[in-house]
């Protein structure tokens, strides 16, 4: 009996972006009715692979087959006609259009030159939403007004409603508070003959629903096996290239007593409510939370990007009002933003120019830049972030994600920051650079600096922080002290549960509070 034709087969796929290798020689197969997990750290190549499979980008090399037929889509529609549907991590919904229109893009009017019949469309949309268990979403609502979690559901529904042969789910639970809904839909899809490629970096989900898993690291496939046959440690080490234990610098508390570096009371702004926190000098205070729970607003408010509606901020005992990041920086509070590409780097400038920007006003003679002084200032700071000097004259876009992040950190430190607000600083950063960043954080704390640190990697929070605040629904849901720091504790609070009574509790027995 000949082996069944795989639902998806991929051979020697390669893709580069300039100097960066996103994918190299990736090959694997997905069988019918199977859920295969695609694992890897941020920046391992998962998203690029999804783009290649979805028809968004064409690979530089390699071949693909769907159900035995050659598959080389030039765009999303080609992919769809071959039965491939994707729920993207960066949501593909148009915010100014309604839910109903979005569901039926790109042809909301049907075939040919017809007109969109709004009422019919909304009825159809309502029917679809009902079938997929999200009837509480109004089809006429504008997508831009909905919360991130709701938008993610719509994205998933849109992919599933095409009853595809191959369903690609890219980090589908990053904003979901009710994962069971998704898992139920996945099993329904499997029954209907769909095969699923499930991209995630969350091990517990992979274990729960995947038969097999493929692990990517630095653009290459490093593991391909059934899930049951692997232990967590094995999966983790192939993802991270290290074992869990040796990853982090030895942490001894550097927390200094009062006065606190940062003291926040009753802070309320758009997207965040009634926050109290105290950040001591020498402390690394973690912040954990699922996507869109208010952590972004908290950091923005502390950095001066969002005006406060209520509450106060005190820096080193002095009351401050931050009108803009400029005033925040003057007080020594510096934000390292989440999205390096959009908000962190100046891609037309060299790495040197990027780093020296905050202090360029001090490197001049009669307003003309004194390049020697500039160079000296930058050379002083780059050993702290472990960035090699040879990168300085290069355009910052030519650097890898990890080196770019180091440059951004150098830029944050060069003006003498005393309080760092780090928002997911290791996203899209390779292992070596991550370790540099961890070491930097420890050193900064040991020298008396304070760090507020948000991360989506739970083990970073567990191993680097002195304590961890958890955000849920725009408020601080709880605080986990050092002694009790564990992934389970953090995850429980982040999902809206109170702390489990028994320390051995691993899974959530009862259904969590359903978000609207």
């Amino acid at each position, binding site marked *: 009996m000949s082996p069944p034709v795989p639902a998806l087969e991929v051979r020697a796929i390669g893709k580069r972006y300039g100097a960066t290798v996103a994918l190299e020689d990736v090959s694997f197969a997905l069988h019918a009715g199977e859920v295969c997990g695609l694992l890897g750290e941020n920046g391992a190549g998962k998203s690029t692979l999804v783009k290649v499979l979805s028809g968004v980008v064409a690979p530089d090399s390699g071949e693909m087959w769907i159900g035995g037929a050659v598959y080389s889509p030039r*765009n*999303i529609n080609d992919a769809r006609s071959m039965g491939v549907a994707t729920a993207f991590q960066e949501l*593909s919904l*148009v915010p*100014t259009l309604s839910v109903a*229109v979005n569901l039926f893009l*790109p042809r909301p009017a049907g075939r040919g030159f*017809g007109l*969109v019949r709004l009422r019919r469309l909304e009825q159809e949309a309502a029917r679809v939403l009902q079938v997929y268990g999200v009837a509480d979403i109004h089809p*006429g609502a504008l997508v831009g007004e909905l919360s991130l979690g709701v938008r993610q559901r719509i994205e998933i529904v849109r992919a599933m409603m095409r009853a595809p042969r191959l369903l690609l789910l890219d980090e589908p639970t990053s904003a979901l508070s009710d994962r069971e809904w998704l898992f139920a839909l996945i099993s329904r899809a499997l029954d209907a003959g769909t095969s699923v490629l499930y991209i995630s970096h969350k091990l517990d989900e992979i274990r729960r629903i995947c038969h097999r898993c493929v692990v990517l690291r630095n653009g290459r496939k490093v593991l391909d096996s059934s899930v049951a046959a692997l232990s967590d440690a094995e999966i983790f080490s192939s993802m991270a290239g290290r074992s869990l234990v040796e990853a982090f610098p030895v942490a001894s508390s550097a927390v200094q007593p009062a006065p606190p570096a940062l003291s926040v009371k009753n802070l309320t702004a758009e997207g965040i409510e009634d926050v109290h926190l105290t950040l001591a000098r020498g402390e690394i205070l973690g912040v954990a939370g699922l996507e869109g729970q208010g952590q972004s607003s908290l950091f923005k408010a502390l950095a001066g990007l969002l005006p406060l509606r209520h509450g106060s901020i005190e820096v080193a005992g002095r009351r401050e009002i931050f009108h803009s990041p400029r005033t925040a920086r003057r007080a020594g509070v510096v934000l390292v933003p989440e999205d390096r590409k959009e908000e962190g780097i100046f891609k037309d400038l060299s790495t040197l120019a990027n780093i020296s920007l905050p202090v360029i006003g001090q490197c001049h003679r009669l307003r003309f830049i004194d390049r020697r002084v500039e160079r000296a200032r930058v050379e002083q700071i780059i050993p702290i972030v472990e960035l090699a000097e040879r990168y300085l004259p290069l355009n910052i876009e030519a650097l890898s994600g990890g080196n770019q992040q180091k440059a951004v950190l150098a830029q944050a430190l060069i003006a003498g920051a005393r309080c760092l607000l780090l928002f997911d600083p290791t996203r899209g950063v390779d292992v070596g650079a991550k370790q540099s960043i961890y070491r930097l954080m420890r050193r900064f704390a040991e020298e008396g600096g304070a760090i507020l640190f948000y991360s989506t990697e739970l083990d970073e929070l567990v191993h680097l922080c002195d304590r961890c605040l958890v955000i849920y629904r725009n408020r601080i849901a709880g605080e986990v002290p050092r002694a009790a720091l564990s992934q389970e504790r953090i995850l429980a609070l982040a999902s809206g549960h109170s702390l489990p009574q028994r320390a051995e509790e691993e899974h959530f027995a009862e259904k969590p509070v359903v978000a609207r």
Partner: protein
Amino acid sequence: MKITVKIRRALAGGGAPFATVVCLLMYAIYAVRAPSALSIFGITNVLNDAIVLAIGSVGLTVVVLAGEFDLSGVGVIAIANVLVATTSGATGLGAVGSLALVLAIGLLVGTINGVLVALFHLQSLAATIGTMIACEGVALLILPAPGGEVADNIATGLTGDVAGVMPVALLILGGFAAAWFLFKRTSLGVAIYATGADAQAARLSGINLRRTRLVAFMLAGLCYAFAGYMLSAETGTGDPRVSSALLLFMYAAVAIGGTSLSGGKGGVFGSLAGAGILTVLQKMLFALGVAEFYTNIFNGIVMICALLFGNLASLLVGSVRRQVAK
């Protein structure tokens, strides 16, 4: 839930309802000073004054909705005007023939713009400056100095009214409004909005960005050509140099009408109202006896105020929406 949804959608539709109200109010004030404004003759008069700007802004709106700039409108209007002035006479192509010719030219220029922007990925601001200058040159080649003669049937036919009741201009504008009403609801119309709002999301949703942008520029070209045709009807003669103020007015009409200059929001109805506001403003100033050279100042101030107001309004709408959503 239904009512709040409807309100939300009306607010999200942009400044069109508001601009229409303002336009009508202004016309009422104007009518107080010049009672003939309420007669069919008066209304026809105003519509004739407004129609070139109105149709031009319709074309510009489509491109702006798609998230692009288009400065070539005045160039196409100039070519259309001189072509009609030179070819519509009795020995030439006649009314219909010259219309077909200018529409073809408008389509051609629009296609060139679309190809440059959508296929060659040029910045639309710079590219359409190039095409605009080239178009002005073509107009000068066809008719180096003002002159030529527009066929009588065009000049009188399009500027008059039907059966003494319905101004022809109103019919034409109505036609454009109806065409937009339909187009907005086609997949292509939705695609234009999507492309302007979030091109990345639009692409991931399966929209063909190249085709969408190309079509937007082509439609704009057609509109500009028609506007030029109407200009010939209005002035009865050809002039290769179209007032550069027209470009400012076209953008002002679009912005006042509530269409966002960054794309994705707004629509043609607003631009029509915006064109109306600007035209009535001119007439009001004239009726009030304001010297002509002050109109430049007023136009500029109105433009700035309109945008200031627009910013404030969207801030307001934003906070109202949040209330409604809660």
